[in-house]
Structure formats: C-alpha cells, structure tokens
C-alpha cells in the first residue's frame, strides 16, 4: 500500500507468475542490449572513435591552415576548398560562425578527420546523412570516415554557439 507501511510478511510473498514472466523477458532484453553495443564495436561499421587528442585552439588553427595550404584547390563563398588524398589526415575546424575548409572527398575512401573548435562548443551534423558529433575547443576528435554515398552534403552546426549559430553551415562534396 503506497500510503501505508506494507503488510506484515511482505518480504516473503511469492512473485506472481505473470510478473515473473515479464521480469524474465525484460532481463533478457536488457542484457542483449548491453552486449549488442559491445558487439557492434567489433562487427558494426558505425562507431564513435577511441581517439581524442589534447590540443589548443592556436595549435589546431595552425595545423588546419597548413593543411589548407597544402591541398587547396579553390574557394567557395570566401571559404577555401580542399581536396586531400584518400587515407590522409583531414582537418576541419569550427568557429563562430563557419566551418573551414570545404572538403572534397572520394566515395568509398577512408579519411582521418580531426575536428575541433576555436571558441565555443559546436555540433557537427552531416546532412542529409544525419550523423551527429560534438566539437569542443581544446580537444581534437579523430573520426575515421568512409563516405558511402556521393553528392553534396551540408555540415549544420547543431550546438548553440551564439546569435549567429543559425548561419553556421559548411559543405562536404563527395565525388564518385
């Protein structure tokens, strides 16, 4: 009784058959879910990474600018366009309120993305694929992507970063 102390001997009352059945089913589902996450790390192809490096906004900016210089192919609306070779380290930085650079990638190839911020937290939201990751200042998040579809993709910022937040949108182009 929710409002009164329980009846004498409540501790020894047998669990009803249907309640027992339900608990057993729920327990099996729960354990499966747990092991599923572990197993997906082994066999699944979409997993948050194990690698983060410590960095500083200054260091990360220097690396990104060097990266841009090395592979720059042009400019789009004032933002440099970069075409790095497959299997290379790719730098993407977020700052109020743009993503730099625009990346040109090849479908089916792997790229080691390094993502970080120069100021506040930002959100890396790849559309229309709808994959979402967080971006921090001071942390270099290493995510190895393999684009499996070609076309133009937007990087929408989906973590609040001040009044210009809604103008923070970047681009990734994937070629066949």
């Amino acid at each position, binding site marked *: 009784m*929710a409002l009164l102390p329980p009846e004498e001997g409540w501790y020894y009352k047998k*669990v009803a058959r249907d309640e027992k059945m339900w*608990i057993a089913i729920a327990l099996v589902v729960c354990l499966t879910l747990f092991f599923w*996450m572990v197993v997906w790390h082994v066999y699944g192809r*979409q997993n948050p990474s194990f690698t983060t490096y410590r960095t500083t906004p200054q260091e990360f900016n220097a690396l990104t600018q060097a990266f841009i210089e090395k592979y720059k192919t042009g400019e789009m609306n004032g933002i440099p366009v970069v075409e790095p070779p497959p299997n290379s380290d790719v730098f993407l930085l977020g700052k109020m309120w743009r993503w730099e650079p625009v990346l040109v990638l090849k479908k089916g190839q792997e790229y080691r993305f390094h993502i970080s911020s120069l100021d506040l937290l930002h959100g890396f939201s790849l559309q229309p694929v709808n994959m979402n990751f967080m971006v921090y*200042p001071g942390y270099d998040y290493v995510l190895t992507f393999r684009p499996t579809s070609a076309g133009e993709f937007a990087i929408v910022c*989906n973590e*609040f970063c001040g009044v210009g*937040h809604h103008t923070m949108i*970047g681009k990734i182009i994937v070629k066949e």
Partner: protein
Amino acid sequence: MFRTCDITGLKVDTRAERLIQLNAVMAVVSLLIGVIAALLLVLTRWQVVHLLPVDWYYRVLTLHGLNALIFWIVFFEIVGLYFGSTVVLNSRMSSPKFGWLALILMVLGFLLVNATILTGNADVLMTSYAPLQAHPLYYLGVILFAVGALIGVFLFFANLLIARKERTYGDSLPLFTFGLVAAAIIATLTLASGAIIYIPTLLWSLGIIKSIDAGVYKLVWWGLGHSSQQINVTAMIAVWYLGAFLTVGGTSINEKVSRLAFVFYVIGINVASAHHLLVDPGPSPAWKVFNTSYIMYIAVLASMIHAFAVPSAVESAQRRRGFTKGLFDWLKNAPWGNPAFSAVFLSIIIFGFIGGVTGVVNGMEQTNIIVHNTLSIPGHFKGTVVGGTTLAFMGATYYLIPLIFRKKIAFFSLAKLQPWVFGLGIAVLAVSMYILGAFGVPRRHYDITFSGGPFTYTFNPATDFFWVLFALGGITAVVGALMWILIVVYSVFLGEPVRGPQDMQLQIAPPPPPKENHGFEAPGTLTLTLLFMGVFLVFLLLNWGWLAAMWEVR
C-alpha cells in the same frame, strides 16, 4: 502543532503544511512562466510564423528550460518530499526554520536567474556550456536555488530519521515514501555535482579562475543535468503508486519487487548522465558503454518492472472488485471521471510508449549518432518529463487541493478534461519533434533555412507537414497546461473551502476485498506490457537498420 485530517485520518503537522503550500505556489508560478515561453518557442520554430527575433528566441529558450525543467519540477518535488516524510508517516517536520531558509534561498535563486535571463545577461541556454559565459549573478542564482533544494532534501532525511526513532511507522516505509527516498538519494548526488561545477564557473565568470575546460564542464554538468531527470522519473513513479492507491485502492502486487526496482535505480540510474557524451570527444567507448547502459541496464530493468507493477496494482484491485470479464474490463471500468486517475494513466502510457522507447535508442552508444542534438532529443524528453512527470504531478495536485489546501476543485468538469488535452497535445508534439529530428532538423536552432550563411540546405519537404503537427500539438499542450493553472489558482485562492469528507469530489478508494488467486494476477497488464515490448523492439531494429546504412565511421 498537529491537526487530524477528517478525510484520511492522518496527522498533519501544520508547519509542514504551510511550507508545502508555499512551495506548491512557487511551482505553479514557474510552470506558468515556462508555458508562456513554450508558446513563444512553438510560434518561432514553426517558421511559417517565426515570431521572435533571434536574440529573444535563445533568451526565451533559456527561460523555458530553467522555469519548466528546473523550477517547476524541483519546487514540486520539495512539496512531495515534505508531504511524504511528514503527513504520510504521521510525523513532524524536523526543522521548520530550515524549511523556511530553503524556501527563501530557492525563491532568491529563482528571482536572480529569471532577472538575469530577461535582461539579456544570460543568453546561454539551460546548459550554459563553458566557454559560453553568463553574468555572475546568473550562476549565483543557480547556486542559491540548488543549495536551497539541497537543504530541502536533507530535511527530508532528517524527517525520516525522526519518524524512525519515534516509531511512527513499522520497520518498513510506505512504498510512496520509499520511492521518494530513492529520489532524494539521487537528488543528493545531483546537487553535489551541481556544486562541483557551478562554484568554479561562478569564480571563472568573476575572473578569479582563468579558464574552465569544456570537456570537464560538460561531464560534470550532466552529472547534474541528467541525474536530475532521474529524480523526476523516480518521483513520478512514486506518484504513480500513490495514484493507483488513492484512486482504486491498488497496491503493488509484490512490494519486494517494487522496492528492489527502486534500489536498482539508486545503484544504476545515476551513471546514465553519460548519455549526453556519447558522441563527444574525450571519454573512451568503454566508459561510454558501461555508464550509458546504466551499468548493464539495471535501471532499464527497474523501469520495466515498474511499468508492470503499477498497472497491475490497478488491475488486481479492480479484478477483486469484480471486474473480471476478459482482459480489459478492469480498465474500462476504471474511475475515468477522476482527473487524477486519467492523469496517472496517460502519464504511464506517454512515458512508456514515447519517452521510454525513444530513450533507449537515444541512449545506446552507436544509435546516438543519428539523434544527437536533433529535434528528436527534446521530442524524447517531452515524452518523459512533460507527458510523464509533469502530467503525473498535475494529477497529484487534484488530491493536494482538497487535502492540503482544503479547497474544492473549481471547474470540476474542466478538470476531468484537462489531462486529456494536455496529454494529447504533448503526445502529438513529442512525436512530431521526434520525426523532425529524424529528418535531421537541429534543436536549439533559430532558422533552418540558414539565411545569412555561406551555404544553404533544404530539409526534406515532408518536414513541412510535421511542422504543422508540431504547432498543433504544441498549442494544444499549452492550452492544457493553462487549463490546469487556471483550475489550481482559482481553487486555491477563490475556491470553496472543504469542510469535511462530504466536500471531497475525488474518491479515496477503500481497499478492495481480499483476493482469491487463480493463475495470472494481471493478464491485461501482461498483454499491455508485451505490446509495449513489441513496439520497442520494432523501433529499435528500425533505428539500427538505419544506422547501418550511414557512412562508415570509427
């Protein structure tokens, strides 16, 4: 110091009663602010109207988060804690003085926070992720509020210790109070995390500390932010048990199972704050998987146990009253005319089918990739803390008005309708937000046409339809919430007094006849929970299937 209630026969400490009343009033004021803000948000995000200018959108979003999620809920939980540790136990308030101190601190915090937000000094959203910075008075306000609440929680434990010493109850606490114990334990560590993070942040905003690490801030902040949601869940479930008891005389069909489930919460639920860091740099997948699984889903198991235990308490009581036909005769003949009953029942359904199902997908490490920071996230917690907790608390007030405020419920026929309007509105709102999120629409975003940005992007045109649903659901929910506020305020300040049991509009159900057991105790509930499990598994598989079709990442 005591009066004896002529309706329930309980001894009521009048000093506790006064504090309960005042905290309840503050809760209603907070919800009112939250709901007005909610209306403005709905009319801004629905870009056909796009009501607010950009700075006011984020300001009002901050206002909504703090008033609805923090002030409304915490003030109401203090009401529950004082009620459950004094009135329910026939015991006294350990220290009314500290109760007043707690209240004053909380009100001061409430005023400071709202003042700094409305004057544009804290456009940082509820989470105020460092290095984003607000005015020092904002942080001070949050700290005062949290300290006040912590004093309230300690008073609850002090009340329990007194009741135990003076033996006002047997060896074991009533289940409602036991649930509140679990909630209060979670509250302790929640508020401690709050202190660990807000005090340095205050010093940082004053220039005394040079910088705050973004990762450390977010990790500790969610120790506050998510654990506080677990307080809400736990308190809500305690209210469910209370509701089953008051409205149909239902008691848990097995107290040991229900109590163990509460202990599972105490052990496993607090680490779930890791949900908020699943796609973040920093912590390793080992930390993420272990913690986000609530230590191997021990707390999800607990929720599933309660999901069976509460409806089965109702079913068992109803069957013993003779509603034994078929699977659902007991449900058809439930006291639907009692707004507390319909509120609790809708709360269970919305929490389970919307909040629970989506919550597990959001909370699994890999599937979080497809929902993180999209509109699916607020969609999910509109199902938990709004359709679940808020609705359950609204139901509980229909008993508080006559029993604690000693007033009749005004506009009683409106009250019967209110849980349905609010519940339906929130359900539509939550589902449409969830679907919009699945199309990639971000949360906390002023303009999804990206005007002024270097590039643009157009979301799937199907989203237009769901935005209309979003607006309809949102406005309906606002109407439902305003109905409740009107009823409560009118009853308390202008209503007719309750002079005795004859003025009681809601029944306090007598215990049902002792039962004769044959086989299954609650076959109807089992059917419902199996249906739930089916929906849950289908939803889960869909999401994993979808995830498997994305770009590869590791």
